[in-house]
């Protein structure tokens, strides 16, 4: 059997970065608790011996308090060797887990990460003495720059099992004893900069600052996204790619293949949004409409993640989130969901109770539009400015709030309080940031593009087979009667199951009024998550709870759509 090595440690100590360094497998790392909620497997090869290396979620102790920690503890028990990663700037608290790991009798090697920061903040640690006291190898690393990784790699085999003899209730005094022997802290005053940064978590200053950060982020994302579209992607598609496709179009005779590949020509020209061909809309939507926003969003998100701002935001919004039966930390799945609902759904694992996870996942799936959905909304109502975009997003926000409040009242179960480590602010390491951005863009391209193309293909088939017009007639009472939309828009709803962004192409030619466009945008976002998100949610919530969540989705969509139809 292959040896199984696991990386264990407190949250946010850099396990994922060390994992990437050792295996070459890229995983997302950020500066907050709970970035890793699922384990990632990789392999390391040493003198022809191949071992499995697992990047486990972080945990403060072997007694798990949430699902991510449960995953970690389970992996730990199945492992043959443990690489225990510690934040050297926080030795005392980190050693608490180390002693628990040592007590288990598994071979352990200890890694003191963030070694470069230690001196910086006036701490000195006697590594040799620490090694002697705990009796297992101790290596120092700075994972971000790669310092010390080679040393760690060569010493993995020296990991030793050492059963420790101490009573559970003496663990902290044991930790205290070790600290006294190996660590010296030279007293240091707070710098001016630290005082300034402290303002971001005090309510009087923190709340206005958080609004500023959010507005600024949104403005920058919109600016970057729109600039990329206007100056790069649209000119490319219109001036370079378009003429090529027109040539192809004249080569192909009108017929089935032409319709599928290129779609309908509109006034003899290709309309990349409305033509609905694989090579036209199928490529234009993911690349020229969504990708620019994906790039802009993840650039800003990665920056916020790596700086350490998100946990502070979690504290500031805690009070508000309690109205929804959640606590501040649930802002993290919501924010991740703005990029893509799939990682958002997975991130609900950092929440402790079933109730919290259900509310967070349902509210996110219904009311948090992913970047592709946002691009769709921009495409539909962007030209109307606040009257369009503003109304759509404001409606979603209100619906999310009301749904949360109702679910909080109706669902039994506990809503625990926030309990969260606030990491120090760090200047994002640009290499790591770019790598993360690239991983996310690659993830989008490899997952979304095939779905869009399949989606466009299916729409064409459904049109040809007459399924869309059949469904249109069937659902007319609801679509037209309740929501006030033309019956042809049912096609967009059908394909929205697969991908929401493609739906723009199907709604755009219907010549709808602003009111109808707003309603269409809102219900397309709300009625159902895309297939990918749905699959993950079934896994996370279980079939029964997902059925309940689906009922909430459909019901609230009809109610909200109906109300909008009446009041707008």
């Amino acid at each position, binding site marked *: 059997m292959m040896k199984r090595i696991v990386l264990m440690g407190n949250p946010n100590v850099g396990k994922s970065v060390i994992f990437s360094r050792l295996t070459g497998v890229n995983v997302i790392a950020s500066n907050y608790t709970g970035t890793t909620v699922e384990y990632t497997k990789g392999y390391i090869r040493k003198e022809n011996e191949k071992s499995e290396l697992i990047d486990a979620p972080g945990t403060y102790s072997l007694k798990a308090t949430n699902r991510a920690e449960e995953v970690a503890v389970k992996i730990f028990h199945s492992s043959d060797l443990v690489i225990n990663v510690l934040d050297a700037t926080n030795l005392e608290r980190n050693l608490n887990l180390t002693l628990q790991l040592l007590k288990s009798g598994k071979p352990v090697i200890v890694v003191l990460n963030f070694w470069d920061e230690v001196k910086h903040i006036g701490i000195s640690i006697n590594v040799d003495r620490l090694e002697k006291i705990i009796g297992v190898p101790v290596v120092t690393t700075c994972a971000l720059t790669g310092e010390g990784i080679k040393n760690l790699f060569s010493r993995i085999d020296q990991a030793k099992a050492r059963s420790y003899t101490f009573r559970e209730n003496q663990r902290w005094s044991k930790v205290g004893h070790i600290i006294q022997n190996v660590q010296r802290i030279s007293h240091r005053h707070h710098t001016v900069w630290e005082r300034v940064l402290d303002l971001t978590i005090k309510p009087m200053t923190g709340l206005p600052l958080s609004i500023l950060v959010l507005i600024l982020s949104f403005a920058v994302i919109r600016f970057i996204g729109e600039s990329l579209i206007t100056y790069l992607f649209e000119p490319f598609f219109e001036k370079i790619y378009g003429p090529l496709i027109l040539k192809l179009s004249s080569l192909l005779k009108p017929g089935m293949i032409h319709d599928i590949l290129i779609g309908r020509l509109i006034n003899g020209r290709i309309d990349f949004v409305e033509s609905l061909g694989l090579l036209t809309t199928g490529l234009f939507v993911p690349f020229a409409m969504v990708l620019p926003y994906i790039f802009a969003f993840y650039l800003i998100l990665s920056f916020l993640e790596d700086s350490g701002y998100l946990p502070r935001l979690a504290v500031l919004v805690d009070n508000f989130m309690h109205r929804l039966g959640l606590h501040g930390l649930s802002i993290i799945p919501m924010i991740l969901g703005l990029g893509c609902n799939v990682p958002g759904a997975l991130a609900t694992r950092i929440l402790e109770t079933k109730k919290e996870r259900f509310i967070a996942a349902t509210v996110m799936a219904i009311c948090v539009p992913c970047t592709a959905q946002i691009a769709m909304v921009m495409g539909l109502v962007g030209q109307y400015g606040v009257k369009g975009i503003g109304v759509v997003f404001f409606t979603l926000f209100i619906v999310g709030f009301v749904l949360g409040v109702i679910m909080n009242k109706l669902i039994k179960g506990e809503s625990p309080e926030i*309990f969260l480590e606030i990491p120090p602010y760090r200047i994002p390491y640009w290499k790591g940031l770019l790598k993360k951005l690239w991983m996310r863009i690659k993830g989008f391209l490899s997952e979304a593009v095939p779905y869009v193309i399949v989606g466009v293909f299916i729409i064409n088939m459904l049109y040809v087979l007459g399924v869309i017009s059949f469904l249109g007639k069937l659902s007319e009472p609801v679509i037209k009667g309740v929501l006030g939309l033309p019956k042809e828009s049912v096609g967009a709803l059908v394909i929205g199951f697969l991908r929401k962004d493609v739906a723009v192409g199907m709604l755009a030619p219907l010549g709808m009024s602003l009111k109808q466009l707003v309603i269409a945008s809102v219900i397309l976002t709300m009625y159902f998550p895309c297939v990918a998100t749905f699959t993950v949610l079934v896994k996370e919530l279980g079939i029964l709870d997902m059925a309940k969540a689906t009922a909430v989705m459909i019901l609230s969509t009809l109610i909200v759509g109906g109300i909008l139809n009446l009041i707008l």
Partner: protein
Amino acid sequence: MKTLIDLKEGEKGLITGLDGGHGFINKLEALGIRKGVVIEKKSSQFMKGPVCIKIGACQVALGFGMARRIFVKETGRK
């Protein structure tokens, strides 16, 4: 007895006791919050919002209800 709620921003306090069951105590203990440790209150949010404390080198945010169950003895300003 004073609790974490009664400390003012920037004040330090020695934890004299935790009022709660096993789960509560284990949860706090995992992050080093335990009897006999000195902590510093960094901030508290409006309307019974979370309290931020500094313990050792790290900062932890905890809910108002939890903070109310942590007894402290004031040890003055930093």
